Every structure is written in structure tokens, then in C-alpha cells.
């Protein structure tokens, strides 16, 4: 018990507090603590010397999240439902193909996308286009946001699809058979039997990925680096860049603080919806 609490406190609790403290300083490359009150937040909210990039970053974050989230859920459902209604070996093959993004390291997944959509003819898809005699496309410059959404969305799909498949596997076979006897077509079985029984997994995965997409920036960093010219810079990546490339730790921390606040609010809403009490069971031996 002790070490667990200790480590969690050390690397979770203290960092949260530290983040809040740093957010009120103008900590820079020199690592000197100097409190400047609400200046960082004033800058964020456009009071006084405002940060002209903020509206852009905000819009990017919304577009990115609203793009990747439905892709993950709908895509995950589609793959799970279809692969579970196939021959088992074929279903397993497709699930393996879509699980690979999560099985390989992020850097490799990033490399795959960066290479596949490389703008010169050395990139995979451009090489194919060139081989077919078609003009090459500057993918990462013309469609950066779409590529970032796809790369992250299919990462989400790999988890969602597994969770949904597992849930479908627990639906008793009698149920789908009963529906078929009752005269339901393949599509109707999915619509009236399978999907309603996936309600909880769908809600869980939506909540999980909503938070995940709001906070994830590693893949964007690896594929586009936030560019070209802030086209794919989302809030969390902007915070990272502020701190670790521009060495404005104080400003970066204030960006994170806002994100933490949004997270906690979202999380409380989710917990309320799911009911936490049932997860806590009592001990049954009192010695």
C-alpha cells in the first residue's frame, strides 16, 4: 500500500499542484520562480497582451476532437460488428490488421504515416501515384488535419473495436437466434439486438476517447509537428511546445491548468453518469 500511495502522490499529486504553481510564474529557461499573478491567464483569455494564436489553437482542438471521436466510435462499431458476423478466421484477420496501430510503438506508427504521406515521390502513396503516372500530392501540406485525424482515429479504432468485439462475444447466441427465428434479417439483428446491447461499451469508449483526444499530442508531434504553420497545433501540443521548445514553462503550465480543469469537469460528468459506488465492494473477512 505504502509505496503505491507514495509513488502516485509523488508523480501525480505533486505534479498537479506543481503545475498550478508554475502556472502563476513566468518561469523560463533560467528556472527562476517569480510569481506574476494571473498574467499568463490574462494572456490566454485575450486581456492585455493577448496570444494571437489561441483562437486558432482552440479551433484546431475542436476540429481534431470532433473529427477523431466519431471516426473512432463508428469505425470501431463497424469493424467489430462486421468482423464478428464473419467466418472466425476472417474476423480475426481483420481485427489483427486494425489492432496493429496499438501493438507497434507510437514512433513507428508516426514514422509509417510520415513516410506514407511524404510529399516527395519517396513517400509511399506518392510513389504509387507516380508509378501510375499520376501527379504527386503534398499530403502533409494540403491535408494535414485530415491525416492527423485519420492517424489518431485509427489508433482509437484499434481499442474501440476490441472492446466492442468482446462485448458482442458475450451476447448469448440464443438471443440472435431467437431474433432470426422471429424473422429478423441480418441487418435487423444488428439494429435491434446487437447495437442496443452495446450501449454501455459505446458510452464508455466515447467518454474514454473524448478525454484521450483532448489530451493526446504525441502522434501529431511525430507526424506533422503541429505544422504546417500551426495547422495541426492542438491545445496540449501547444502547451508542450511553449514549455519545451520555447522554454516558457510558466505559460505552458497555465495552458495545462485549463486543460486539467476541462478534464476534471468532463470526468466528474462521466463518473456521475456511470455511478461509481458499484465499483467499491466491501471486504468480507475482518481479521
Amino acid at each position: 500500500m505504502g509505496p503505491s500511495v507514495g509513488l502516485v502522490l509523488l508523480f501525480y499529486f505533486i505534479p498537479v499542484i506543481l503545475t498550478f504553481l508554475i502556472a502563476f510564474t513566468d518561469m523560463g529557461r533560467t528556472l527562476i520562480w517569480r510569481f506574476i499573478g494571473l498574467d499568463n491567464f490574462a494572456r490566454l483569455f485575450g486581456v492585455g497582451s493577448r496570444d494571437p494564436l489561441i483562437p486558432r489553437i482552440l479551433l484546431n482542438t475542436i476540429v481534431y476532437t470532433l473529427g477523431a471521436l466519431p471516426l473512432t466510435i463508428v469505425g470501431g462499431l463497424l469493424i467489430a460488428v462486421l468482423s464478428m458476423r464473419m467466418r472466425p478466421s476472417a474476423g480475426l484477420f481483420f481485427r489483427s490488421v486494425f489492432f496493429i496501430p496499438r501493438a507497434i510503438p507510437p514512433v513507428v506508427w508516426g514514422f509509417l504515416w510520415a513516410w506514407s504521406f511524404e510529399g516527395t515521390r519517396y513517400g509511399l502513396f506518392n510513389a504509387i501515384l507516380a508509378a501510375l503516372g499520376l501527379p504527386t500530392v503534398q499530403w502533409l501540406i494540403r491535408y494535414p488535419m485530415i491525416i492527423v485525424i485519420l492517424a489518431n482515429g485509427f489508433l482509437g479504432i484499434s481499442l474501440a473495436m476490441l472492446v466492442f468485439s468482446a462485448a458482442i462475444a458475450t451476447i448469448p447466441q440464443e438471443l440472435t437466434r431467437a431474433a432470426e427465428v422471429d424473422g429478423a434479417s441480418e441487418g435487423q439483428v444488428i439494429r435491434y439486438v446487437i447495437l442496443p446491447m452495446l450501449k454501455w461499451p459505446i458510452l464508455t469508449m466515447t467518454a474514454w476517447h473524448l478525454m484521450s483526444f483532448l489530451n493526446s499530442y504525441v502522434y501529431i508531434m511525430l507526424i506533422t509537428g503541429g505544422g504546417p504553420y500551426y495547422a495541426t497545433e492542438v491545445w496540449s501540443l501547444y502547451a508542450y511546445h511553449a514549455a519545451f521548445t520555447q522554454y516558457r514553462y510558466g505559460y505552458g503550465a497555465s495552458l495545462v491548468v485549463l486543460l486539467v480543469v476541462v478534464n476534471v469537469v468532463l470526468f466528474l460528468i462521466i463518473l456521475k453518469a456511470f455511478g461509481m459506488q458499484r465499483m467499491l465492494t466491501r471486504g468480507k473477512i475482518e481479521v
Partner: protein
Amino acid sequence: MAYKRGTKAIPYLILGFVAAPFLIMYVGFFLRAFGEKMVLGIIPAQWGIYNFRFLWQPITWGLEQTTMWTAFGNTMFFATLSGFIVTVICMLAGYALSRVEFRGRSFFLILQLVLHAVPGQILLIAVFFLLLYIGLLHRIPGVALARAALEIPLGVWMAKGFFDGIPWDVERAAMVDGCTRLQVWYKIFLPLVKPGIAAVFIWGFLFAWHDFIYVYTLLPGTIKVMATLIQSLLATEVIDYGYLAALSLIYSIPPLSLFIFLQRALLKVPIFGGKGT
């Protein structure tokens, strides 16, 4: 149950269509790693392992130089240490949360849950300062500790699940038979949750092996792990994609094989019947 032939093919067509670009990417990746002298940029004219020359040659970029084996060893050390920390802490805490009634138990469980609201990757700034102040910044053990802490909230729930799966009656039987609390732990629980221990370790190991942002930010450029090595090579002026594909392939082998193993280990967790109250 027999369906019309036409409708039966639809799922295959849809998934085949969605999977096609990815299959092209994966196949292209392999061709690029093992191919030499590419024709039209994608079709290898000759097979070979020239792209794997880092296995016996140092890797250089800019003015810097390292070997693949150093980076691989660093990654292995980092991931093993992190996995070990996660396992020990999660197993102890998971047992306590599953079986022992103590003050603050509910609070701790809720705390573990609420921590999910704050993903580790956005706390990086604070973790940077924390490691700096306790003198562990720029060292693999320090970063491994910080990385392990990220997996603990979920890992503890996972471990709790494994212990929850062992019926109370088995534990009660052991206590009637004369076990102390500690003896129950190592004579009964440990053998029964062995697959669980393996799963938690692999879980911690894999996340550390996959990690990019922590090692990239918290380790100096001179200590390279596989992830940061590949990233450095990607950031150079002239990119040799074949070489990078080969390096990425080597880097991906351990997690890919572990994922297959993890699936089996998880299936082996014993499942009991009975009233279990």
C-alpha cells in the same frame, strides 16, 4: 442458418476496402525494409539486409553517433525497470484494495479513478521540475519511476480485478487451515495470480517500451533509446527510409511478440464457479 450469397459477401467487401490502405502501408513497410534498389520507388529490385547494417555498424547523424545495441539496451533497461516497479506496487496495492478493509480504502479507490482525469502526458512540465529537484532528471531510473507512476492507477485496478477473481471461500479455507494473512498471500494468492502478475508486468513493460514523450523530454540527447533514436534520424536533412523501416522493424518485434503472449496469458487466468460470496 443460410443467408443469400450476395449479402454474405458485403462485410468482407466493406472491411477489405477499409483495410486496403493499411495493408498497403504494412506491406510497403516490409518491402522498404528488406528491399534494395527500389524500382519506381516502391518495388524492390533486389532483396537484402543492407538496410539492417546498423546491426554491426554504428549509427551516425549530424555530428552524433551511437549504436543500435546501446539504444536497444537502454530501451530494454528502461522498460524492464518500469515494468518491475509497476508490477510490485500494483500487486501489493491490488491485493490490499481487493481484500483488506482499511481506513481510507474508498478514498484511495476514488483517487485512483480521478487520476485518470489527468493524463500523465500533460503533466510533463511538472514532472520535469520534480525530477530536476530530486536529482533524477536525465537518468533512466528516474524517468522509469515517473513512467511507472503513470501506469499505476490503471494497473492497480487491473491487479484488483485479478484478486477479485479468487473466491473469498478459497481465502477463508486457507485461514481455517492455519494460514496467517501473509501465508495466504504467498501460498495461495501468488500461485493463483501468476498469470495476472505476468500480465501486469507486460503491461508496464510495453507502455514503457512504447514511450516516446517521456524519454524524449526527460532524457538528454546523449542517452538514446530506440524511440528517440528513430525520431532523431527522422529529423535529419536526408532521410533514408529503408534504413528507418529496418530500424523500426527491430524496435517493433518485442512488443508485437508480447502482444500475442499477453493475449494468451490473460486467457489463462483461472475462472471459478460457486457462490463466491
